């Protein structure tokens, strides 16, 4: 297997892929901008303050239509998250009334939320959600940031593996939230739908959810749509991947260990084989 034959193979593959890939790019929707997220890259970690701001946007805006059934109040306290104190989280949970039961007399009853409750859904079932939203179902937000993506194509999808780009979902959500615009000339938007530059097909049932100054930030962060969109996207990423901090931290430890072990093994192997021509 000579270097020459490998190069030949690589060149042939490059030629082969380049032609159809570039042919397919024409007429594509706008691509979401790649933001610089605190949790991107090998040492990425969530920004606690950003998650707290994002949680506020989620709580006051998104959660009035979207459920988040895998998200529990206790998650607000856990390491690698928004790091609310236990007292704060309990207070947040207690703001909601949860249906529990049946009690000893067989009746369902309402009680304040606890840490062990999941985030209460705004609608009792999908049908009720559709009925209140013009027939469209607001998707559950628990893993939404991993359930959304956008087309990258060749060669981007290959280089993404090397630069560890995994933020397709958050970048898409941020782009979607800031992508509402007047439809271009000649584009007819169906009634009940709204024009969005990034939504597949460009017509989305959700009206623009954010407006400047809508959510109050107490830490001096600008109260703009773009800032809200960035913060809530980061929060949704955390909700979808709550153990990201631990994953990257442990990953670094494992990689360092394996590099050292590989080095030791390599020199041991070299020593053992040194007397044998091979």
């Amino acid at each position, binding site marked *: 297997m000579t270097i020459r034959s490998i190069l030949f*193979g690589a060149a042939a593959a490059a030629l082969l892929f380049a032609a159809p890939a570039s042919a397919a790019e024409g007429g594509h929707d706008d691509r979401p901008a790649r933001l610089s997220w605190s949790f991107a890259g090998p040492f990425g970690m969530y920004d606690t303050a950003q998650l707290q701001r994002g949680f506020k946007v989620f709580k006051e805006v998104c959660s009035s239509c979207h459920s988040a059934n895998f998200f529990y109040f206790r998650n607000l306290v856990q390491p690698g998250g928004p790091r609310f104190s236990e007292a704060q989280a309990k207070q947040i949970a207690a703001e909601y009334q949860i249906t529990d039961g049946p009690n000893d007399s067989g009746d369902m009853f309402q009680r304040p939320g606890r840490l062990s409750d999941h985030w209460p859904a705004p609608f009792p079932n999908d049908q009720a959600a559709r009925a209140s939203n013009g027939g469209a179902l607001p998707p559950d937000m628990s893993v939404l940031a991993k359930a959304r993506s956008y087309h990258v194509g060749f060669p981007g999808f290959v280089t993404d*593996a090397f630069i560890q780009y995994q933020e397709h979902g958050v970048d898409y959500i941020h782009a979607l939230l800031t992508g509402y615009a007047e439809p271009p000339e000649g584009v007819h938007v169906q009634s009940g739908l709204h024009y969005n530059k990034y939504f597949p097909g460009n017509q989305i049932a959700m009206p623009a959810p954010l407006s400047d100054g809508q959510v109050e930030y107490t830490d001096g962060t600008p109260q703009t749509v773009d800032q809200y969109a960035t913060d809530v996207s980061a929060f949704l990423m955390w909700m979808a991947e709550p153990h990201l901090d631990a994953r990257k931290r442990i*990953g670094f430890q494992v990689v360092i260990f394996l590099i050292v072990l590989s080095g030791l093994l390599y020199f041991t192997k070299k020593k053992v*084989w040194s007397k*044998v021509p091979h």
Partner: protein
Amino acid sequence: MEGHSTYQPKSKVAQWFESRLPIVGLVHSSAIAYPVPKNLNYFWTFGAILSFMLVVQIVSGVVLAMHYVAYAPVSFARVEHIMRDVDYGWLIRYIHANGASMFFIAVYIHIFRGLYYGSYKAPREVLWILGVIIYLLMMATAFMGYVLPWGQMSFWGATVITNLFSAIPVVGEVIVQWLWGGYSVGDPTLNRFFALHYLLPFMIAGVVGLHIWALHHVGQNNPDGIDVKSVSKDTVPFTPYATLKDVFATCVFLLFFCWFIFYIPNYLGHSDNYIPANPMSTPAHIVPEWYFLPFYAILRSIPDKLGGVLAMFAAIAVLAFLPWLDTSKVRSARYRPMYRIFFWIFAVVAVGLGYLGSQPSEGIYVIVSRIFTVYYFVHFLIILPLLGFVEKPKPLPASIADAVLARHAKGGATVVAGAAAPETK
């Protein structure tokens, strides 16, 4: 596995045991004394890497099964429960999900190594066919495993693939309903796929045992593709030589694996599989996992459904006949100047089919897919049988020891002519 052992138990207890069950001698002869050609390169470490990956998949899979529930209304949530609430559940699941891909990366390198160095030729035909069977079992296992998280791609992938069987004339519909356990993919399908997904890895382990047995019976092929003439001059004992090299290579492979587990765990998956399965909503593009894409491209390139299914299965089945389709007496592509070129063309075509399988079935993609599909079969059914007659191989070295010495004399370049008389086996 037999014949090479010099194992002599020293203690009375060990002698008593060995005369009743010679298992220590078996391990000694197959993992310590077993002679390994001394000219093997790092492509020969993938057997060990694959064995390691099988263990990784079985161990992580057994732990996942302790937390998973195969019941359509809850399976998606159970997987999220593993990801969120089980201690290190995210790690175990990402190991298992990416481990499947690593398993296939390793097996494709292993297969292409066999293709390049002619490892399928006599006396290794049965060894090769056992490998093809393992590959088939791996594909079945991986396919059913992908269904278990019960996301959109799980559901629709299962629907597309099981529907292929409906192309079989007369009994197709009945077979598909029998596979589903109903009139569509649903809870009974999920449940039986889980049962089979747990069973098949142990069948793989069994066939791997046969694969290794056959390997140790006939001995390993090597980059020069010539037989071992003298055990003392041409080979080294498995331990410590091959063992250390395998452990080192496995460790480097683990580093590659860790890149995916810890930094890009969802890179090889599809985002749609984080949407719960919904029979009422079809995803825009149904794409199988990357390791099936070349065969998916072949399936779609044939305009007829039954023809496509037959072509897809034939693309795998043709591998089993490879030992008889390749008529050349020379094994290694090192000494086959024409085959070497065709090998690389084939490799490009195979990777190209993979790319085409990921693209929508329209326009230029369809035309290129058809050309590549035809070439895939032409390579096996026309080029390889003819090449044995047309090609003039380079002279083979007299022995592995000679080949090694000649390479050292030339400073590491490929041996062009052996010092001794050319041998055409």
